[in-house]
């Protein structure tokens, strides 16, 4: 075969990418991220292995001391670990985007007539799959260790949905940082300062009432605490709606602040 049949110019000029094209471009690019997960499952280790280790460590090491018995502690810890895990998983978005930019993959996309926002939106949409895999691994491990959902499947699915929404809101912080730092390795380093007080300064591992007063102030308003309480209510039975609403507002606030920042930084970096 000759290049003549392979590469004759197409002579088609695209003048505009509308919202439907943008959505299509984003979905194609999200598909790329999913293929990458399938090919390199080891990139998910941070959001699969770490929560499993936490599960074992906390349940058997501290469970007896904190809750009196390990099974009761597992039921209490598991919803919180889901929240912590989703928070960690949301950090990956910025790292992945920064890698694409520094490796030149973005240049390829940007030299093509696709919607400007598509690489960004595609990366974020593709991350939903990462969140779901991370949740699934955690849930399955917990169930093997004896965790049970005491309510109904609908409530369980609602918990998963809440987690994904929370992750999607939180990931803009990571995108923002990912657009500002030079190398992908720098992203988690910067974000640890943000994510540690968020996930450990919460009621995920120990009841708020066991903490000193100054810490309780923060722990009570922390969205991780609120989302944990919502998940506990939904999975173990108990009130959840107020907590869920509170956590959702928080997540929305984070997104409202960081989405424009991230988008502007994105336009500035690769505009």
């Amino acid at each position, binding site marked *: 075969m000759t290049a003549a049949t392979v590469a004759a110019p197409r*002579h088609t000029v*695209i003048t505009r990418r509308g919202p439907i094209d943008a959505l299509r*471009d984003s979905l194609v690019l999200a598909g790329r991220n999913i293929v990458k997960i399938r090919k390199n499952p080891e990139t998910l280790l941070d959001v699969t292995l770490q929560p499993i280790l936490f599960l074992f460590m906390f349940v058997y090491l501290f469970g007896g001391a904190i809750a009196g018995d390990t099974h009761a502690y597992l039921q209490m810890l598991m919803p919180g670990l889901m929240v912590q895990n989703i928070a960690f998983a949301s950090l990956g978005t910025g790292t992945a985007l920064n890698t694409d930019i520094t490796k030149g993959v973005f240049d390829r996309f940007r030299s093509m007539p696709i919607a400007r926002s598509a690489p960004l939106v595609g990366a974020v949409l593709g991350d939903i799959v990462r969140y779901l895999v991370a949740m699934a691994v955690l849930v399955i491990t917990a169930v093997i260790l004896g965790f049970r959902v005491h309510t109904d499947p609908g409530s369980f699915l609602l918990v998963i949905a809440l987690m994904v929404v929370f992750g999607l809101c939180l990931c803009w912080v990571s995108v923002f940082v990912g657009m500002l730092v030079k190398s992908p390795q720098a992203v988690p380093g910067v974000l640890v300062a943000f994510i540690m007080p968020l996930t450990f300064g919460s009621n995920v591992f120990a009841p708020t009432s066991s903490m000193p007063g100054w810490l309780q102030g923060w722990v009570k308003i922390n969205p991780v605490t609120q989302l944990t309480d919502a998940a506990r209510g939904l999975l173990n039975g108990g009130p959840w709606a107020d907590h869920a609403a509170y956590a959702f507002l928080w997540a929305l606030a984070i997104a409202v602040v960081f989405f424009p920042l991230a988008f502007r930084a994105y336009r500035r970096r690769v505009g």
Partner: protein
Amino acid sequence: MTNAIEAEGLVKRFGKTTALDGVDLAVPGGKILGMLGPNGAGKTTAVRILATLLRPDAGWARVAGYDVVKQSTQVRSLVGLTGQYASLDEDLSATENLVLLGRLLGLSKPQAKIRAAELLARFELTDAAKRSIKTFSGGMRRRADLAASLVGRPDVLYLDEPTTGLDPHSRNEVWDTVRTLVDDGVTVLLTTQYLDEADQLADLITVVDHGRIIATGRPDELKRHTGGQTLQVRPTLQVDMDATAAILADLTGTKPLRDDDTGLLTAPVADPMLLSAVVRRLDDAGITADELALRLPSLDEVFLSLTGRKSSSDTDAARVPERSNA
């Protein structure tokens, strides 16, 4: 014929560095422009502006009549880019990369697969099609990148140092591809550090240095300016130096430069056909040569003759590559 690529007064600064300092370009449709310059001359910066990846600080550029800043979508739908550095997803296979690009360009999945297979076959990558790019050699990456830039059947193709790091076979493959593309009516802007590459491929050569254009012309015009080619002969036996020098002086009409340390004789030649005459005369005289070559002036020599000074490569000038042409 209208110009497929046009630019006037392009300026681009990075902090204190002025990467482009008023560059004008005009490439007629279906022609190849070779942009020749040392490291740091501003070649990549110019290509990135023309590919809409960078905005110029001053000046304008149009591709097929569309402004690269104001009509970037139109420009993007017409251009293909093979950047200096690979821009494929290392984790994906060659096929997956090309299918992804095809899908982004609006092909259906089956269409995109057919297109990917065609292009990979064209670049002799069919056997490696399923391997991830990270397992590819440098030459394979360049070819895969070139294939990627052709998925959309571009009207205008930018090739930023497409053969740097390729072996002679792959280099010739790339050259052949570029020639076939131009036969199909594609306009090509190619950057290179090799005069012989520009000479082999380009209809027009622009020499850049320090973000400025220091010469533009057809290859023969530039070469006339820079003194054509150089004949190099290294007799096997030192004692034959004098006889060889005499033959060269006789044929070229100038006294050859002689380096007794390396045993190398060099003389400028205007007519490449002279090479066969030299071979015959040496043979008649019973002189054997270890080295007998015609080569183009190196980039350094071009600069020397165009500007009267050494090229201002921002790295070691000795690293500016030089290739034998024999």
